[in-house]
């Protein structure tokens, strides 16, 4: 029940509960003992009184002198608690009364058995009058219990006051003393909280006591030191590895750049000399010779674009990103208008919904759209009409999702993972020309913007390419 209560209050509550229970028990036993003693004393007192009356009234009863018996009873007037008293004779009739003017009808009609009896407001005692073994009569005394009741109340109130005062005192004391236990724990908890909040593992908890909490503090500090050390090692190791990786990456990029660049020179020679050969030997060459030359030129050109793409790809990792607010609607429209040449003679149904703005590098994002849209146009060229759908929507709290859907050749989902790899092609070059670098570029650009890419498709039923970008206010 105390599970969610702070430790300070738990300690106080436990103290109060214990002291309250002990005090209550003590008070109850004390009051009970007092009351029992009081009652016993009262019974003893009244019995003694009855005994005296009985002893003094033997002669009165023996010689039937009622006035003397009344005299004997009148001694009771010294005790204001005696309500009434009487002496019965041996026939059970009221023989003498106290106070003397009390009507005989006010007394029990016949005496009861000897003994005492607590009635609601009175203690009643019967005591036989005995002379030489003969019962001459019976003394009856009715004793007022108001005093007893008042004592009950006084005791109860006193006990309650004591319990309340003591519990209050216990509260004050335990409020002070609980600090001995709670303070070190609270200090430790506070330190732990601060460390979790600030991630500052150089902080140390202050050791206050030399008990279990002190040991806990020591252990905690040791663990902190360990974490601090591990963190430092880890960080330096990460720095080291990152530096190594960056160096390797740079080397690789420089290498591929120079390779690509160097590959172009011989390629230009091949193309150039093939062209010169065609011009100088145009008449002498057989048609098949001509065709071979064309193929050589074509292949050289294709290799040139391949190398260009590779250069772009390798440059992609190095160019600085210039982040601006990018209007995706405008970007898509721009791409489509630039593809006008490829679109001649094509029947394409465009379905473009308004797209959300994003924060990113405009030139890079344009490449993404160019790649995705040109892919859609390319792989749907056997369809008439081709249908291309472009959508953009908020996905979750942090991302916006864009998609380009076509109804073209599609792909086998089995290979969906390979789509975005460099030089990965799912179609023969004869079917759909391409270098296999476009989607790799798309993935690289989107990753650099902090987004994701994936694709869905089915053979001959079209494909959908997705990418996400951080929501506008999420990018830092």
């Amino acid at each position: 029940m105390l599970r969610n209560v702070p430790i300070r209050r738990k300690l106080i509550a436990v103290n109060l509960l214990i002291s309250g229970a002990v005090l209550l028990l003590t008070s109850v036993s004390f009051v009970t003992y007092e009351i029992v003693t009081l009652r016993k004393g009262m019974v003893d007192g009244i019995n003694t009184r009855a005994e005296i009356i009985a002893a003094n009234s033997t002669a009165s009863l023996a010689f039937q002198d009622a006035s003397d018996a009344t005299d004997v009873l009148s001694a009771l007037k010294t005790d204001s608690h005696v309500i009434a008293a009487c002496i019965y004779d041996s026939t059970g009739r009221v023989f003498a009364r106290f106070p003397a003017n009390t009507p005989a009808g006010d007394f029990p009609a016949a005496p009861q058995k000897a003994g005492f009896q607590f009635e609601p407001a009175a203690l009643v005692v019967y005591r036989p009058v005995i002379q030489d073994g003969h019962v001459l009569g019976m003394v009856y005394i009715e004793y007022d219990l108001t005093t007893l009741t008042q004592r009950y109340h006084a005791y109860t109130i006193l006990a309650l006051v004591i319990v309340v005062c003591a519990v209050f005192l216990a509260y004050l004391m335990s409020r002070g003393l609980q600090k001995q236990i709670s303070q070190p724990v609270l200090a430790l908890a506070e330190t732990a909280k601060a460390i979790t909040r600030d991630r500052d593992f150089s902080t140390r908890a202050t050791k206050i006591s030399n008990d279990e909490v002190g040991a806990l503090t020591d252990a905690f500090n040791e663990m902190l030191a360990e974490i601090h050390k591990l963190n430092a090692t880890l960080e330096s190791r990460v720095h080291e590895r990152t530096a190594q990786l960056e160096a390797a990456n740079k080397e690789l990029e420089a290498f591929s750049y120079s390779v690509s660049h160097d590959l172009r020179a011989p390629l230009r020679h091949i193309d150039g000399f093939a062209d010169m050969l065609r011009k100088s030997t145009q008449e002498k060459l057989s048609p098949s010779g001509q065709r071979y030359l064309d193929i050589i030129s074509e292949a050289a050109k294709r290799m040139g674009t391949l190398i260009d793409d590779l250069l772009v790809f390798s440059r992609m990792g190095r160019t600085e990103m210039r982040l601006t607010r990018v209007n995706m609607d405008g970007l898509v429209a721009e791409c489509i208008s630039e593809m006008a040449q490829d679109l001649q003679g094509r029947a394409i149904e465009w379905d473009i919904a308004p797209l959300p703005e994003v924060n990113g590098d405009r030139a890079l994002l344009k490449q993404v759209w160019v790649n995705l849209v040109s892919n859609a146009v390319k792989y749907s060229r056997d369809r008439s009409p081709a249908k291309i759908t472009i959508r953009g929507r908020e996905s979750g709290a942090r991302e916006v999702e864009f998609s380009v859907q076509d109804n073209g050749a599609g792909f086998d989902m089995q290979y969906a993972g390979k789509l975005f790899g460099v030089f990965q092609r799912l179609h023969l070059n004869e079917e759909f020309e391409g270098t296999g670098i476009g989607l790799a570029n798309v993935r690289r650009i989107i990753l650099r913007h902090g987004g994701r890419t994936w694709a869905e498709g089915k053979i001959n039923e079209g494909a959908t390419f997705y990418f996400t970008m951080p929501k506008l206010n999420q990018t830092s």
Partner: protein
Amino acid sequence: MRHWLAQMALAVAVLFAGRQMACAQGDVSTEYKFKAVFLFRFAQFVDWPTNIFTNAQAPLVIGILGDDPFDDYLDETVNGENVNGHPLAVKRYRSLDDVKDCQMLFISSSEESRLGRDLGALRGKTILTVSDIEDFPENGGIIGFVTVQNKIHFRINTDAARDANLAFSSKLLRLAEIVTPQTR
């Protein structure tokens, strides 16, 4: 509870009757029944010296000197009773010379003429004398019955009692009229 009520009912009924009609004309026996019970009660309220008994079980004798006015009633009253362990017994004497081993002596009114001589003879003896002869305590007797307004009272000559080496319970004295004769 009912026990003692039943047991004592008769005696007390008689007592009460006596109280009410002690001097109803001619009803002598009722008056003497009452006095018989009183005699028994007197025995209970006297401190009897132990040396007057031959042993602890010796009877306490109530003697009647002269004509017996109690008939058998005194015998019935004390039958089976005892005082301090001494069983009560009744003896009847014709003359004072017969009086021996007697602790209480009721002097009948038939002895009125010889009273002065008798009391003189009894002086110094530990015998509780009781009588309903008029002015009995004044004449050296110890307890005298008087009837006032249909009630039986008793009068005690404490000096005579002291001379007889007898002491009364203060409870008894409280109920009695104390008589102190002018002359010893």
